[in-house]
Each structure stands twice: as structure tokens, then as C-alpha cells.
């Protein structure tokens, strides 16, 4: 080997250290960049070979694919439980339980007002109180019904927003696929582009259930329910299909090319759809059942009784469900402004209070939807039914909060592990910096030694 060849080694050594130093600088400057994976030079010692080839160094990002996969799987659960926990919490607050303003208390006051009426059937003040209690009860039920529908509408709006985000992120991933493929064709890793693409994949996985496969050309294929939303640089969008469901227009997700349904089972979208299509409609149905039972059972008894004016056959409540239950305000049969029309008497005599007593008894018995008092599998006790509805939903809220907490713990543990593998440690980079500095110094030293040796050699000739 010639001394002149050794100069090349020295040059290469200096260049390698400079290149490494550049990577270290990049790591330090990105210490706070979200999603940045630290890079390392694949350090192969520069060896002189027969072909006089010297290794070119290459930078690679340090990343654990298994952790990435784990995070993406758990992110779907996180998105699902996070949105459910948020919306369930909102729903739970509607009920105002346990408090004086909750329906539990209002129902009790309503039944009690009938007993007060039974004690003083001739008293107009007592009669007015019955109407007031009926109105507050009915209005509370109306309020809950409309608040539930508002939240259902909110959930649907969220779905529209999320749909847009999903398409945006998926199309970005397709773009990055194209860029990464063209850069990596030259053999160089497109580290920063991969970092960016990973961020989009993480975000997408929180929104909807995705699975991914990395292809040999560096692109990532993204599937939702077995169908590719991204393959190579092709983005296959999903779109909204509006249908009417439960009295409102809701957004369903379909594939834009053939309108087939997108199979959704996790992520924020799944949590939103479940809340919109199952949780809230179930609750609304329960309140409708409660309202119908209340309306029919009270009316059935009330109809048979007589007001102070000796007229019978009037309804106390009107309406067909939770949305429109109210104290009968009909112009000719209405109770609202006519306390004398409340039927407390069974036979028309003022002192007879049997109807008022019978209505008060509804607080303890089981009644069917059409208002028949019977102990059977399809009959309910109104107060108990309400309490069970609210408290079993309370259990759902508690469960979703607990699930969210545990998924959060899993995700943050995974994030920490990812950070531990891919994150930048300043201390480490400083060490690296000194190491490279020393190596550079040594390389220059080596150069000057070779230089001196060449000098010496030249002097022999001279």
C-alpha cells in the first residue's frame, strides 16, 4: 500500500466524522420535535480493501416496529374509550342525579301531591300544586329528551369531522408513500419522511380501526376492515352517506368508489357510532317507555274520575312520549289552567278522594305501557325503572372511565418505551459529540503524520 493511498484513508476518516457530527447535530436540534426518531450512523470502521473501496456511511433512524404496532392497536382503543367517556360524562350530567332536581325526586313530589289532594280534595291550592308538580315532572322529562338528542347530534357532527380527518390523513400517507418510494429507490433511507408518515399513521389509528403492512418498496398499505384505504401512492377515499335514523339525518361511512359500507369496529369513529346509534337511542327509548307508562297509567285512572265540576273522562297528561309529555292544556278538557277539572273523586262527590288515592298508589305498583296495573314481566314500577335506567347508565360511565384509564396507562407505557428507543438523549449526544471530536482530532493527527512521512520521503529524493 502506498503512502498516498493512506492519505485517502485519512480523508475518509475526517469525512466520516464530519458526517456523523452532522447527524448528532440533527439529533440535538430535533430533541423537542414531535415524532422525531433519533438517527445513528451505521458505523463501520473504514477499512482499506483490495479494491481500495472505502465504506460510505449511512444514517438510519432507530425505531422499534413492534412498539409502533402496539401503539397503533392501543390508540384505536384509546380513541374509542376516550370519546365514549367524554360523551357518556356529558349524558350523565343531564340526569342531575342524585339531586333535588332529578326526576327521582320530582316523581316522588308528584305522587305526594296526589295524596295531599286526597287529604283535601276540595282545596284549590292543593289542586294547583298537583298541576305544578305535573308540569315540573313533564318538563324535566322533555329537557332530558331534548338534551339526549342534542348530544346525539353532536356525536354525528363529530363523525363528519372525523371523516374529513381520516381522508386527509390517508391522502397524506399516500403522498408520503410516493415520496419515500422515489427517494429510497436510491438506497438511502428517507428517515424524516418516514417519521412524518408515522405521525399520520398514529393519528389515523386513533380515529378508526386500521391495519398496516409495510411493502418492500418502503410504502405502507393501510386497511380498514380488510379494504385498502391506502395502497402504494393510491388513496381510496371514504365518504358520507346520509340516511335518516331515529328522527334525524345521520352520517354513515361508505367507500367512495362502490358505496359499500366501511367496516368500523374501533377508534373514535366506532365510539361515536356506538354512542349515536346504540347508547343514546336506548336511553331515549327508555324515557319514552317511562313517559308512555306515566301518561297512560295516570290518564286511565284520571279519566274514570270526576272534577269538581262533575265532569269525567278528562286526561291529566297529554303527549305520546318523552319529547311531548305535558299536563293536558287542551282548550276544552285541559287541566293546566283549570285546577277544578282535576279528577279526585270516583263518584262526583267532592269529598270522595278515591281517584287521587289510586293515582298516588301508582308510585308503588307495577304498570304496563298501556297503563294497566299488573305484576308481570312487561310491567314496570315507574320510579324503579327510572332509577335502574340512570344507575345502570352510571355503571356504563364508570366502566368507560375505567377502561379509558387502563388504555391510557397502556398507551403511555408504550409511548415511553418508544421514546426510550427512539427519543433523543442530550447527554448521549454530548458524549457522541466528544467522541466524534476526538476521532476527528485523531484523523487529522493521522493526516499530519502521513504528511510528515511523505515529507521525510521527499527529502530522501532531494
Amino acid at each position, binding site marked *: 500500500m502506498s503512502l498516498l493511498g493512506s492519505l485517502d484513508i485519512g480523508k475518509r476518516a475526517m469525512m466520516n466524522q464530519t458526517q456523523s457530527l452532522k447527524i448528532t447535530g440533527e439529533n440535538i436540534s430535533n*430533541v423537542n420535535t414531535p415524532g422525531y426518531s433519533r438517527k445513528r450512523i451505521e458505523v463501520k470502521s473504514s477499512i482499506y480493501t483490495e479494491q481500495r473501496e472505502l465504506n460510505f456511511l449511512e444514517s438510519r433512524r432507530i425505531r422499534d416496529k413492534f412498539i409502533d404496532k402496539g401503539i397503533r392497536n392501543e390508540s384505536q382503543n384509546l380513541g374509542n374509550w376516550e370519546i365514549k367517556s367524554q360523551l357518556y360524562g356529558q349524558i350523565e350530567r343531564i340526569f342531575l*342525579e342524585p339531586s333535588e332536581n332529578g326526576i327521582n325526586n320530582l316523581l316522588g313530589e308528584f305522587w305526594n301531591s296526589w295524596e295531599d289532594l286526597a*287529604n283535601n280534595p276540595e282545596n284549590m291550592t292543593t289542586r294547583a300544586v298537583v298541576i305544578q308538580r305535573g308540569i315540573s315532572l313533564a318538563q324535566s322529562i322533555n329537557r332530558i329528551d331534548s338534551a339526549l338528542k342534542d348530544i346525539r347530534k353532536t356525536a354525528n357532527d363529530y363523525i363528519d369531522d372525523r371523516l374529513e380527518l381520516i381522508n386527509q390523513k390517508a391522502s397524506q400517507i399516500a403522498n408520503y408513500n410516493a415520496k419515500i418510494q422515489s427517494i429510497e429507490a436510491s438506497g438511502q433511507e428517507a428517515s424524516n419522511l418516514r417519521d412524518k408518515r408515522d405521525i399520520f399513521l398514529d393519528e389515523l389509528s386513533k380515529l378508526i380501526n386500521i391495519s398496516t403492512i409495510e411493502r418492500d418498496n418502503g410504502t405502507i398499505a393501510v386497511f380498514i376492515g380488510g379494504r385498502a384505504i391506502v395502497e402504494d401512492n393510491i388513496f381510496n377515499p371514504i365518504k358520507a352517506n346520509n340516511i335518516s335514523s331515529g328522527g334525524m339525518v345521520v352520517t354513515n361511512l361508505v367507500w367512495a368508489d362502490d358505496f359499500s359500507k366501511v367496516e368500523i369496529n374501533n377508534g373514535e369513529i366506532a365510539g361515536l357510532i356506538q354512542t349515536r346509534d346504540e347508547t343514546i337511542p336506548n336511553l331515549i327509548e327508555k324515557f319514552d317507555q317511562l313517559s308512555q307508562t306515566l301518561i297512560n297509567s295516570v290518564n286511565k285512572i284520571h279519566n274514570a274520575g270526576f272534577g269538581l265540576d262533575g265532569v269525567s273522562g278528562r286526561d291529566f297528561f297529554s303527549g305520546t312520549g318523552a319529547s311531548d309529555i305535558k299536563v293536558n292544556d287542551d282548550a276544552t278538557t285541559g287541566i293546566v289552567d283549570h285546577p277544578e277539572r282535576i279528577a279526585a273523586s270516583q263518584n262526583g262527590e*267532592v269529598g*270522595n*278522594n278515591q281517584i287521587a*288515592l289510586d293515582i298516588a298508589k301508582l308510585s308503588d305498583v307495577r304498570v304496563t305501557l298501556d297503563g294497566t296495573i299488573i305484576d308481570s314481566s312487561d310491567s314496570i314500577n315507574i320510579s324503579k325503572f327510572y332509577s335502574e335506567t340512570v344507575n345502570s347508565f*352510571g355503571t356504563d360511565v364508570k366502566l368507560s372511565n375505567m377502561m379509558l384509564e387502563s388504555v391510557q396507562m397502556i398507551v403511555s407505557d408504550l409511548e415511553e418505551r418508544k421514546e426510550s428507543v427512539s*427519543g433523543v438523549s442530550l447527554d448521549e449526544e*454530548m458524549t457522541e459529540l466528544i467522541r466524534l471530536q476526538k476521532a476527528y482530532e485523531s484523523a487529522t493527527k493521522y493526516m499530519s503524520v502521513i504528511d510528515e512521512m511523505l515529507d521525510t520521503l521527499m527529502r530522501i529524493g532531494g
Partner: protein
Amino acid sequence: MRVTDKIIQERAIKGMEQTAQKLSKTHHRIATTKNISRPSDDPIGSSQIMANYKDLAKVQQTLRNCENADNLLSYTDTILERVSDMLIDARQKASVMASDTVGSEERKTVANEVAIMIDQMLQLANSQFSRRYIFSGQKILDTPYIKTGDNIEYVGDEGEIGQRVELGQDTMVVNFPGSRVFGYGTETDGIFKVLKEFKDALDSNNTKEINSAIGKIDDELDKISIVRGEIGVKVSRIQSSIEGLNSLEISLKKDISQVEDVDMAEEAAQFMSDQEAYQAALHATATILKLPKLSDYI
């Protein structure tokens, strides 16, 4: 494990968040004095509280019913006591007047007294309690006894009025239709008929009729005392129901409080320890973020 700067920072932030959250939860419990402010805080406890509140409302309503029935019955008894006193007075008069030594003039004078007595009796029979007639059956807004000339007639009905004075479905009859107490009137039977016959006997100076009036007045007195006995039984049943309901009310309130209300001493201690934990987290965070880096020594 490789620990990077970000891990240290995020752990510090998480630590502060968690302790702050705990502190805020304890503070909320102390501020509201409630363990359960939403069903999800404790679904089982919350359903227990709701059921207890429902029972409590029922108990309180039943107590109100009891008070109402008790007032009505006690008032009825007061009226009947005066009826009874008046009848005893009439009986005494009758036994004095039955004597052969009494002259017709004296009997006429007493006859006038009895006429006044009949009017007083009519007033008692038409007594009102908070504007409802207590002896008119279910026709509580109608005067039960109407006087036309010398005739007094019952126009109320036989309707009974029930009120719920115990937990459960059963009601107690709290009224006594006048027909059971005073009878149907001067033409038919009852107190007014007996008194009218007594007065007529005095007017006509008929010793035999006066004598038979004594027995009839005794019969009416018996009827009144039977009704008063019934009232006594009802009132004592109400009293014992009130006692039971009062102690049930206390125990329900205690149950509710046990589930719902916070143990202040315990929460205060918890608050102190949460506060310390939070301060410790702040201190640790401040310290760890100020730790020197390798670069400080190079």
C-alpha cells in the same frame, strides 16, 4: 431502560397532573360534602340513595297524612264530646221533669230550653273543619242538616273518606257520616227525633212520654260513645303509626347520610396528605428539571 430528557419531563408532568387531580377530587368532595355527586361515582350507592330518598318522601307524606287525619278525628271527637254533654244535660232534665210533682208551666219552660238545645245540636251537626263539613259524608261542601220549620233533615250521604295513614296501600276511614251520629232527622230517627219528641212531651205535659224519652236519650248516648270509642282506636292507631314513621324517617336519613355524606375528618386528613403529595411532586419536578446536563461540565 434508556431514559431520555423527554421521558423525564413527561413523567414529571404526569406526576404533577395526577396529584393535582387527586387533590381536586378530594376538594370537590369536601366542598359538596357529598361522596356521590353522579351515579358513576358509585352506581350501587347512588341507586341505594335514590331508593332511600323515594322511601323518605313516602314516609314524610304519610306523616303529613297522619297529621291531617289526626287533626280531623280529634276535632270530630271534640264536637262529639259536646254532643254527649248536651245529651247528658237533656237526660238530667228529663229525669227531673218525669217527676209527678212538676207542673205543666215548669215543663213548658224546660220545653223552650230543649228547643234551644235542638238548635245548638244542629250547629254541632253542621260543624266545619277547615271549611269542610265533617258530618256530611262525601258531600263535604254541603251543609248536612237542613232545618225547615220544626223539621230537621239529613241531606248528606253515607260516603266514607279514606286516608293513607300507614305505609302500604291500605287507607283508614276518617269521617263519620251524620246519619251514623245524629240520625236522619226529626221525622225519621236519631238525636233530633228524640229531642223533638222530648220537647213535644214536655209541651203536652205527658209524663209517660217524658219517661220514655229518658231511655231513648240513653240509646243516643250509647251510639255517641260507640263512635267516640272508634275514634279513640283510630287516633291511637295513627299515633303508633306516627311513632313508627318517625323512627323510620331517622333511620332512612341515617342510611342516606352514611352512603352520601363524606366523613369530614377522613376527607380533611386525605386533603392534607394530597396537598403534601402535590407539593412533593412540584418540588421533585422543579429539582429534576434543573438537574445539570453533561454539557454543563464540558
